[in-house]
């Protein structure tokens, strides 16, 4: 997978090819209204800038670029038409080079690739570049390439990655290494809880997160409220959770601030915001290091530690390190998880790749004055006549053809079409003139993707039978709640809406053995990538429960560090001490 990882050129860096220059869009000094989107690096090669203006063109992104030689250059922009079809592409933008607005509109070719922008004249020294959005409908720019020669950079992903390495003259490994006692990758509720728990026990912790704010699905960027119970970890989780406001509520901003304030209280947690992990090196089934790059500057750091926690949601650290994992729905017979009430929707006779989908939440509001919203032909085949003015958890997309990781950009883009199209239809209704889009997330709020395999695989039966474990460190009372797409049972329904199935149960438990990798000796996991079956995930996938997992793992890491033992050995040799530490959390709080 290494070839997929993009490297970045600092703006002032000299290019290997004297007469050419590569500028990564995400490294523009002023982003204007453009936002950095690093969600799909593994699929398309790099973070990129997105003009997410909800239909209103965003402010220009601006960079100052130093050219060693003045004169005419050929210009290419790496971009894509995100909704190809027989209509005007929605995500168009232009490029201004040294006050000269290039005639070419970019964002018109299907698939990620280099679009030629003609020639531009620059002067020796500093020149101003500007990305000029034309639509507000999610135009995207990955990079800009200037060259004296009319030779486009490669488009194939592997070739492009190699070319980027070559032109930026960067070594394969990060230039900088940092050592910690415990490295937590993923700053969602699970990751934050894990960092706090370990830090309270004295470990020096790195918390690596690819967004500017902590909280993951609970952050103001995605805005899902936290559900579940606190279990043993009320004190820690109350530093991180949210109120039970409606999903999508701007109240999430206040919770972001609370979360950041609380994490900042721990001197021994070093938070790396806007750092995205892109590789993990494992030797003899032990993770040695995790490499991460800054999503804005391209700077890279190698993080080494004796213990790592994969709180990425997608199980990336485990995946790169070679951990065993599962994806999709297991056959009902595999873990005996069938429930006649819902049959195939709950657990299929034959395994498949269907999983619960990702949500993109959104809101609109009634303003004091009229707002126009255009008719959008490029949404019609997704929404038909469906009309809406907000989207809650039911706005969820998944099908057997889509992989929640590999096809994540397609999933997000489909949801954007669903949202814009539904709102355009809504605006055609009477008395909607003042309604205006307020907020549409551009991040996919995932429910399910890779699940790393631990010594115990938590299943529906563990919840249903309320199995008591000697190592029960997480508890939950929430129903087992598995989703399916509405159009599976009613083809007339839009494909972006889901329904939930609930199995009510009493309090159930998750054992510690579901929170470390079966075959990677120093890897913990917490969050939706913990060791569970598809149906088993239905209950504990909510964020207070995943937060419990994180805290449990953080405390486990502290004892493993203390005794220099593997996570499995903690269960085998030091379980009493570990469970006492877990129990003390609740006692101490009460």
């Amino acid at each position: 997978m290494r070839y997929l990882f993009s490297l970045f050129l600092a703006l002032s860096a000299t290019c290997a090819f004297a007469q050419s220059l590569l500028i990564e869009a995400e490294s523009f000094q002023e982003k204007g209204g453009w936002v950095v989107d690093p969600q799909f690096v593994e699929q398309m090669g790099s973070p990129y800038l997105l003009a997410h203006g909800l239909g209103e063109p965003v402010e220009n992104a601006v960079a100052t670029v130093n050219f060693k030689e003045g004169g005419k250059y050929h210009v290419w922009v790496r971009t894509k038409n995100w909704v190809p079809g027989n209509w005007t592409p929605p995500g168009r933008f232009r490029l201004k080079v040294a006050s000269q607005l290039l005639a070419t509109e970019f964002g018109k070719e299907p698939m990620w690739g280099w679009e030629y922008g003609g020639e531009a004249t620059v002067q020796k020294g500093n020149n101003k570049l500007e990305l000029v959005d034309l639509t507000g409908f999610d135009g995207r720019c990955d990079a800009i390439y200037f060259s004296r020669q009319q030779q486009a950079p490669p488009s194939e992903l592997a070739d492009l990655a190699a070319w980027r390495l070559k032109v930026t003259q960067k070594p394969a490994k990060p230039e900088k290494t940092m050592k910690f006692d415990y490295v937590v990758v993923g700053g969602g509720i699970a990751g934050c809880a894990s960092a706090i728990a370990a830090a309270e026990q004295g470990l020096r912790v790195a918390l690596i997160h690819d967004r500017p704010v902590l909280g993951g699905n609970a952050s103001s960027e995605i805005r899902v409220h936290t559900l579940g119970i606190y279990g043993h970890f009320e004190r820690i989780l109350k530093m991180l959770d949210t109120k039970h406001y409606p999903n999508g509520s701007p109240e999430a901003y206040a919770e972001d601030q609370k979360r950041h304030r609380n994490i900042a209280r721990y001197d021994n947690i070093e938070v790396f915001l806007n750092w995205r992990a892109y590789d993990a090196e494992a030797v003899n089934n032990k993770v040695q290091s995790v490499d991460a790059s800054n999503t804005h500057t391209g700077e890279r750091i190698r993080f080494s530690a004796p213990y790592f926690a994969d709180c990425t949601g997608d199980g990336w650290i485990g995946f790169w390190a070679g951990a065993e994992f599962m994806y999709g729905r297991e056959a009902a017979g595999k873990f005996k998880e069938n429930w006649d009430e819902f049959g195939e929707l709950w657990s299929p006779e034959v395994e498949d790749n269907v999983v619960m989908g990702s949500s993109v939440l959104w809101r609109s509001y009634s303003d004091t004055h009229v707002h126009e919203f255009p008719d959008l032909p490029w949404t019609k085949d997704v929404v038909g006549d469906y009309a809406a003015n907000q989207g809650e958890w039911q706005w969820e997309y998944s099908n057997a053809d889509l992989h929640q990781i590999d096809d994540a950009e397609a999933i997000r883009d489909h949801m954007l079409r669903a949202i814009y199209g539904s709102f355009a239809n809504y605006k055609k209704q009477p008395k909607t003139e003042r309604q205006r889009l307020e907020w549409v997330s551009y991040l996919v709020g995932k429910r399910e993707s890779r699940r790393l395999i631990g010594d115990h695989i938590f299943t529906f039966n563990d919840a249903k039978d309320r199995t008591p474990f000697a190592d029960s460190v997480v508890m939950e009372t929430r129903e087992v709640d598995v989703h399916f797409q509405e159009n599976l049972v009613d083809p007339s329904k839009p494909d972006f809406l889901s329904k939930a199935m609930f199995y009510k149960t009493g309090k159930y438990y998750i054992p510690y053995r579901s929170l470390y990798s079966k075959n990677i000796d120093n890897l913990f996991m917490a969050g939706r990538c913990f060791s569970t079956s598809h149906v088993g995930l239905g209950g504990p996938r909510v964020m207070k429960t995943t937060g419990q997992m994180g805290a449990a793992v953080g405390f486990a890491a502290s004892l493993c560090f203390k005794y220099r033992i593997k996570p499995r050995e903690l269960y085998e040799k030091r379980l009493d001490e570990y469970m006492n530490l877990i129990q003390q959390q609740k006692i101490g709080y009460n």
Partner: protein
Amino acid sequence: MYFAGKGRGRKSWRGREARQRTLLLASLAVLWSFSLCARDGIADTVRVRQPLKFSGSWPAHPLYAADASVRFEDTLGVVHRIGRLTDSKAVPQGYVSHIETPVCSDTLCNLMDIRMFWTLSGSYWGFDTIPRKPLTKNDHLKFSEKDYEKLHELLMDEQSILRRRHKDDLFDKEAKRVSNVVDAVTGATAKEVKEAVVDGAVYSSYTIYHLVHSQLAAVIREDVRKHLLPGLAEKLINSDKVDERIFLIRELEEGQLPDYTGKMVETIPMAIPRDRLYIMKKLPSASWNRKDVQVPVAGMAEFLDIYSLSHFLNQLKAADTLYVDCLRKLSERLPYFSVNQIRTYLSLLERDQSFLKDPAIVKAVKETAADPGYQYRSYLDSFLAKNQLSQ
């Protein structure tokens, strides 16, 4: 006065008697016409009239209900008797039950009196009211025609919100919470429930829904499994009710599948996406090598949902033998494939040079690639170039 009176009285009595007789006969006739059933000379069965509401079709020939083929005690302790519905030759056609059950809310506990019908797969078929016992709401108002239609719609919705909610969760407990930033949280759950049920009859709707779809349906399916299969297998697999076909397919064991492959394929386009995928997954792996499976399924591609179409393409990928007729039919759908489906389809074409020489296939690929609005053009262009088909 007396006699006269007596005489008039007698005459009057006779007249009254005649009128009463007439009234009685008329009443009986009315009752007869409104009654559920009529004796029709078949031992232990009664003839059943067409119900007030039913889904799909109702047989033109008469149906007869056997009394209490199955008994079932529900969670409230009410014993339900379910009778098989048969035709005049005693061939089972469905099930019927006269349901009298308490419907309780916080303050009321009414009785609901209704006659329910199921297909042989235990799916909801229809319902009928009992003469002089119309359904009522919580406030004792009689159901209107609109209410009966709503109830029918609800019962036809196999995946109604009611199925997924516990009785205690019909109303959002947090409905009155107020937010500083947004309006009061009015509770999407309550709204969803309200939209699904008969207005003013939440608990009646809930109770009857769960009896029909969960408890009694399961009992019916068990009766069919235990007492009617395998004798009914041919009837079920040839049924015009897709639920009955699916039920039979679910019951098939591995060794029986080859005999039913053709019928399973025939059922695919009749089914909803969930069941299409189920049927396709149940088809034996070896069957995907058969021309009489590949070609008909490819011919259905236009009507297949993304789940079943992707599954089909993946089965073709795993198959040892591919038929050009199948790939040719699929080529007609090329502009509508997803990117992953395109990748799979192109990989199928590359398995055999003869596929790449098929004029219809090549034409379809080229024409699709030539559409400037086609989103996966680059894949097709690369494919054509790689296989030297660009010219």
